[in-house]
């Protein structure tokens, strides 16, 4: 679902809720009915149903979560439904379910994602997606897995997401500095490493950024990234950009 559609659903849910509240006060029939989350839950859990219809139900329910108090009684079953959808055969539905569960730091999702990273035969999403979802929990425990992917995996997206996991780990500062400074590393990995290092050890980031700016053989887009960060931190770049 694109952001516009999602926003429209949230607005409709809010409008419907407001109508429900008015109806409660005036007890007048005939106003627009509120969202039917019980029906949406049945649809999402109905594995015989078309995956797109189930995904639509998922997003209607997710829009409902914005109405925290009204949705509270449906939430336990919603989490169960998401856990069911996370193991569905349909990849899009699976991804959508993991996306929501990971934002909720769900332990079932963590276990499934971790299992998939440890054993590709059990993987429900790609390693890059799994690491990206696990990286959302800075109180997680995926750092050692992320380190192994960073040392052995050659896919740039996977490596970049492994760096995102490590961005919560102060013990990974040296590894991040190494990736940020390595001109043979993928550029997206170097950029992700720069972002992580800037957060974990700003002084080390500034020193390394100055080295990169002073290195005439380094890439312009990496220089632009670190120069921008230095300027945002109000640190004056000491080195002159390399001639192009």
């Amino acid at each position: 679902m694109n952001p516009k559609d999602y926003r429209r659903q949230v607005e409709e849910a809010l409008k419907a809720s407001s109508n429900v509240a008015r109806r409660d006060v005036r007890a007048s029939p005939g106003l627009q009915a509120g969202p039917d989350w019980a029906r949406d839950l049945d649809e999402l859990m109905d594995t015989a149903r078309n995956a797109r219809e189930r995904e639509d139900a998922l997003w209607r329910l997710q829009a409902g979560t914005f109405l925290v108090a009204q949705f509270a009684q449906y939430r336990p079953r919603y989490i169960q439904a998401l856990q069911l959808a996370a193991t569905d055969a349909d990849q899009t539905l699976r991804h959508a379910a993991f996306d929501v569960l990971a934002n909720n730091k769900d332990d079932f999702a963590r276990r499934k994602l971790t299992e998939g990273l440890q054993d590709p035969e059990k993987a429900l999403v790609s390693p890059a997606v799994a690491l990206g979802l696990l990286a959302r929990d800075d109180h997680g425990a995926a750092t050692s897995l992320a380190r192994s992917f960073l040392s052995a995996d050659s896919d740039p997206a996977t490596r970049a997401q492994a760096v995102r996991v490590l961005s919560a780990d102060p013990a990974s500062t040296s590894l991040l500095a190494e990736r940020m400074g390595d001109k043979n590393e993928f550029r997206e990995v170097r950029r992700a490493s720069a972002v992580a290092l800037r957060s974990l050890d700003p002084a080390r980031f500034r020193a390394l950024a100055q080295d990169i700016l002073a290195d005439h053989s380094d890439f312009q887009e990496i220089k632009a990234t670190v120069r921008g960060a230095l300027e945002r931190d109000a640190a004056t770049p000491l080195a002159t950009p390399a001639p192009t």
Partner: protein
Amino acid sequence: MPDAVLGADLMRRATEADCCRGPDRDLLRLLREDAPIYAGRGAVESERLRAFVMECVSNAGLAPEAWAFIREELETGMDPYAVAAAARAVRSLPSPPRGIERLLRGAADRISAVDETVWLASYPAPQGAAGPSAVAEVMETLAIVGRLANDTMPPICADQTSPKETAVPNAIADLADVELEDQDGRLITFAELFSGRAGVISFFYTRCMNPNKCSRTIARLGALRDLVGDTAVVVAGITYDPAYDLPERLRRYGEVRGFRFGPLSRLLRTTGSFEPIRRALELGVGYGAATVNRHAVELFVIDRTGRLSAFERQLWNEQDVAAAVLGAEVG
């Protein structure tokens, strides 16, 4: 040890007569955050495992020492499993204290936005297993304690007015040389910070996800600092997570919570390992792969001779702490 083996072992231990009583109390000890079974786990994972330990402790026949853990969870817990396990444990209390209903209602309110079904019959939960929701567990306990309400029991807050003696009353002497860095990057040792002054130390970390713990602690420390005014009392917050909580982070964290900094009121990090402090003060903190995975609410009062007393596993208020520390300053 695989989780399934660990879960079975915990259930077996709960059947042993001395698991929560006597000198061993090995199951009861697992409620502490620094128990080795939690090391390296993520925060949510650690909460789930600890909830199961709480369930086993209840099944074994609740020891009096478990009450502090139950109360702390009901006062501050945000994880549905942990709160549900604490609520279920209340059912094992021979006489629930007065005020328990208020505590349970507060816990239900706090977790209603993150409610989910919980499974505490085994660990880890089998795929697809679902018991009642955490809020339903709390409401069930409310219904039960409503029938057991006992007006002769002391109220829950009766023990909040003064600090208790700690198991480590002289621990400060061991920390004299530990170097700390404050929110402005100034270095100071424990001995220099206190040097014959009374004071308080509380612990926090800026990445804490539970607003009832660290955020509240620093806001209340700020209020305490205002209450003690210009007296020579030290008000210090020390981070559990010194590698991440660099001075700039400490300063911003304190500023937005109204903590007024001064020579005797600082937020600090250790420049080296935090372990000597954790060990000397027997702090209730555990660590995951990258940061803290769970911690207690802890505040120590230090008198001018360096002797410690503590508010442990409870939401202290600044008036009680001010009374205690000003008494320690005069004494």
